[in-house]
């Protein structure tokens, strides 16, 4: 590093060094510095310099700057704080600093930079570089360097053909390219379907499993995800879904090295993953720490000389996972999705309190806004209503703002709802409504000809309450009377088509970006002794029981409790209701729907 010739510098022949533009840039840098580090800039020369646009985040290497400085002065300290766009130089004297200033400021352009460097004098410098704490790993994390040989690495890379992806699934995600083997990983829900295997892990990779066994890894890995990261690409921080994969997850790095960031609460650890290394995530590191890779072209790394940047090349990672059969039994419950999906998550006692806070009260609060957003009838519900004969007595259980009560056909339509805000709205629209609980319908047995209940019983928080609601609807029906029930489906994507609920979200946001960012929503709310996850709207459901945000125009957020139904669940529930037979079960735009018919022989 003796001559500046090697560094390819462009020395701009600027007649006026302190032209207006550089003055403006200096001024802006002064303010930023004062705000960031409480360091004042100086109009007069000092022994301290700041290169305003020469920090680690601009991708400048320590070595490059050292090249420039070595040619000018003999002794100095270069301080490059992480996460900053500027760096500092402590010179031996004001004279040295002036020399550097005059040579660099507005004149030197480093390779890869858009404009010349801007320099200013400062009153002091920050004490040291922010030393990164990569000395300690998260508990449960191991890195084996040189896990495979260079030759093996080349062999592995040769097996990959990203253009040809017929037999395997290759997804062009915004942030990276992906291939799956064994089981397809569904982005959005972050699950795999254990009953739907795809092409198994190729023979070419068998030797890796043998190597894993040598390192005492107990699993026979059955799911492989290969990611290809171009420079500038990354993966958002996430925890692999507990219920989907077993404890130990392996990740083999090929090609370019990179920094992987691990986070847990306020702990933040950067782990440098060199090529050919194997990362082993178990226990806490696997279950409680998020891991991710920043979308950047450079990584900030520690060297003997101090902090510097390292350019990224193409990185390929092989992630081996074992698909879980059964429940996750981890001890990190606050990060675990598993317990929410198992049978009864609230008992009968807390159910009504939960529904009161997260259904009834919310509907009272949002009734006006709800009314403004609920007008269009769902076509298949209209079709059902259209099939009813003249003189039908129809009851709409959970009628909301009465969108199915309108229409002047000769059907007597009655609505009922728990919310007084919503029944008031119905009344103002001239509908016949009353206020009641759907678990206790105030109508006689066999009194109505048809019942509809659209998007209602998914607000009931126990299976028994949902069953009882259906049983009440059947009770009030006359023999041969029909009942149409709609509930929200856990499956928001069916037969390769997204529901309109998901589509609406994608209209507003780039799909791939969304997929990347929403690996798992971490928000949880505890109420009545149960902990409920908060759903990220317009994404697939990761849980069966959750709180779904409702945003008012004012930005105020309300959370509504939902139990989303899985395929077959609604029909199963209906079979447990006596006196009715299932006429039809169907899926309609993200909802499970059933048409029941009241039996004849049950009549008194």
């Amino acid at each position: 590093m003796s001559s500046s010739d090697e560094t390819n510098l462009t020395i701009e022949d600027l007649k006026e060094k302190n032209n207006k533009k550089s003055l403006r840039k200096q001024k802006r840098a002064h303010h930023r510095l004062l705000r960031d580090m409480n360091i004042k800039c100086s109009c007069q020369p000092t022994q301290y310099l700041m290169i305003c646009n020469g920090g680690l985040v601009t991708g400048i290497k320590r070595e490059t700057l050292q090249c420039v400085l070595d040619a000018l002065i003999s002794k100095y300290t270069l301080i490059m704080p992480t996460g900053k766009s500027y760096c500092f130089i402590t010179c031996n004297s004001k004279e040295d600093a002036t020399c550097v200033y005059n040579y660099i400021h507005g004149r030197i352009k480093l390779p890869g930079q858009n404009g010349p460097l801007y320099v200013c004098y400062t009153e002091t410098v920050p004490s040291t570089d922010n030393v990164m704490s990569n000395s300690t790993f998260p508990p449960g994390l191991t890195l084996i360097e040189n896990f495979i040989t260079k030759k093996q690495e080349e062999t592995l890379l040769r097996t990959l053909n990203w253009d040809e992806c017929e037999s395997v699934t290759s997804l062009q995600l915004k942030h990276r390219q992906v291939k799956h083997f064994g089981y397809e990983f569904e982005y959005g829900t972050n699950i795999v379907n254990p009953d739907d295997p795809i092409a198994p892990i190729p023979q070419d990779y068998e030797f890796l499993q043998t190597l894993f066994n040598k390192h005492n890894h107990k699993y026979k890995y059955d799911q492989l995800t290969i990611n290809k990261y171009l420079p500038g690409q990354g993966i958002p921080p996430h925890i692999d879904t507990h219920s989907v994969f077993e404890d130990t997850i392996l990740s083999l790095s090929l090609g370019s090295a990179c920094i992987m960031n691990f986070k847990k609460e306020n702990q933040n650890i950067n782990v440098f993953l060199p090529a050919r290394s194997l990362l082993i995530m178990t226990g806490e590191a696997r279950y409680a720490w998020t891991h991710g890779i920043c979308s950047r072209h450079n990584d900030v790394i520690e060297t003997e000389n101090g902090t510097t940047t390292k350019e990224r090349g193409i990185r390929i990672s092989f992630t081996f996972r074992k698909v879980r059969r059964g429940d996750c039994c981890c001890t990190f419950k606050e990060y675990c999705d598993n317990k929410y999906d198992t049978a009864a998550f609230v008992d009968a006692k807390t159910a009504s309190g939960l529904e009161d806070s997260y259904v009834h009260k919310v509907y009272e609060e949002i009734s006006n806004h709800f009314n403004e957003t609920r007008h269009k009838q769902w076509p298949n519900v209209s079709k059902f209503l259209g099939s009813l004969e003249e003189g039908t007595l129809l009851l709409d259980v959970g009628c909301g703002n009465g969108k199915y009560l309108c229409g002047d056909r000769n059907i007597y339509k009655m609505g009922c709802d728990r919310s007084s805000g919503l029944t008031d709205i119905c009344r103002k629209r001239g509908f016949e409504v009353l206020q009641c609980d759907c678990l206790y319908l105030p109508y006689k047995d066999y009194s109505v000809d048809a019942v509809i209940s659209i998007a209602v019983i998914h607000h009931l928080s126990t299976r028994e309450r949902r069953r009882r609601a259906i049983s009440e609807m059947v009770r009030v029906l006359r023999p041969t009377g029909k009942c149409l029930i709609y509930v929200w489906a856990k499956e928001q994507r069916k037969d390769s088509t997204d529901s309109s609920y998901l589509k609406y979200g994608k209209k507003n946001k780039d799909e791939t970006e969304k997929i990347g960012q929403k690996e798992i929503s971490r928000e949880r709310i505890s109420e009545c002794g149960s902990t409920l996850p908060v759903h990220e709207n317009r994404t697939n459901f990761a849980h069966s029981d959750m709180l779904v945000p409702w945003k008012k125009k004012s930005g105020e957020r309300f959370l509504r409790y939902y139990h989303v139904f899985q395929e077959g669940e609604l029909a199963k529930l209906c079979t447990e209701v006596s006196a009715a037979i299932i006429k039809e079960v169907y899926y309609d735009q993200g909802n499970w729907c059933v048409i029941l018919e009241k039996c004849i022989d049950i009549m008194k």
Partner: protein
Amino acid sequence: MKLLTHNMLTSRAIRGVTVGYPLRIIAKDIRVSEVDFNPEYIARIIPKLDWTVLWKAAESIGHVGELPQILIEDFESNDDFLKKVHHVLLEVEVINGDLLCPESGRKFPINDGIPNMLLNEDEI
């Protein structure tokens, strides 16, 4: 609340109540408004009614008019009769008042035409 709705309402969900039907009406405000008359529609509804309950309800709120206490035969072809039924079923509305459980005496308030049939947890 229209009298057609009242014809179906019960308070049987209250613990200890065995029939809870028909509910008594204490009407404070009644509104009579004109509704389009469709004789066929009314003729189809009549067989579904508890006629006695309808008649008594109409009488109790002073709107029974000339409605006979016993349902006539061949009502389908009697437009004059159907019109009277139409009036009682659909044109008379209880706007404010109470519904009373015949067994327990529990009051269900009617406000602005909306009966509040919600029960407290200790009643069920």
